[in-house]
């Protein structure tokens, strides 16, 4: 992650080498993350471009060989919050009560008889799953993208999102329950 306490001093040549070797290989994941945040190809492109330009400008605070992908995702997420989220119509904050214990007994009972069935899920095509994910509020969508699609650890997610690990976990838990509800209603509409 950005290690501003010990900035490096890379030569111009070295900067380009790090940029090409460690940053650019993540462009695919970066573009998809940007698109899933903005739902717009041009915005996604701008956001990725801006992120990479920032990454190059602040490359001295990146320590070679550390987690470039998490570092880049953090920059992208911050650019999104600062520049795009403001102008989007999406409500800024979801009303969460994140600190509370989320495994309460009511929750647990509901999960004993899940009425979403594995077979229903397996019959879903990309559109339904994508739509279910996209219908979640951006903060919930983001944790699912980071964890389930990009495979970041809780610790990496905490750094990318600037939130404690406990909050990562509770937000993920809530996001997954919301997603499950969406998938459940798709399954019902498919006749399951």
């Amino acid at each position: 992650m950005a290690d501003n306490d010990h900035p490096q001093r890379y030569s111009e040549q070295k900067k380009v080498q790090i940029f090409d070797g460690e940053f650019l290989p993540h462009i695919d994941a970066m573009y998809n993350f940007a698109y899933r945040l903005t739902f717009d190809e041009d915005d996604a492109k701008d956001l990725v471009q801006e992120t990479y330009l920032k990454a190059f400008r602040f490359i001295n605070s990146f320590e070679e060989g550390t987690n470039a992908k998490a570092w880049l995702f953090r920059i992208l997420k911050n650019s999104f919050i600062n520049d795009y989220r403001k102008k989007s119509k999406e409500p800024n904050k979801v009303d969460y009560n994140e600190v509370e214990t989320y495994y309460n007994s009511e929750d647990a009972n509901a999960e004993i008889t899940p009425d979403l069935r594995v077979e229903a899920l397996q019959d879903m095509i990309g559109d339904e799953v994508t739509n279910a994910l996209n219908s979640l509020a951006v903060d919930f969508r983001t944790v699912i993208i980071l964890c389930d699609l990009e495979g970041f650890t809780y610790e990496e997610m905490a750094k990318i999102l600037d939130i404690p690990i406990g909050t990562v976990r509770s937000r993920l838990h809530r996001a997954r329950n919301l997603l499950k509800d969406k998938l459940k209603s798709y399954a019902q509409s498919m006749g399951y």
Partner: protein
Amino acid sequence: MENNDKTPCNEHVKCMELLELILDGEAKDGEKDYYFAHIEQCMPCYRAHNLESAIRTVLRNNVDKKEVPADLVHCIKSKIRETV
């Protein structure tokens, strides 16, 4: 299976928390041992496990992926060349 569908699991809350840790690759060895031994004996937890892993599989495999615009890398690199 000792515990069929009709018997609620009295450790379900703990198991569901472990389930998330396990599928997210964040569980410790002791937690994994406990959990996998448990779901072999407990139908409700076993079913929950299958459903949650199916959801993750479907997410990984079925969410649409966008192709990166062909000129994006070129755009970025030429902007950077201007600044160097």
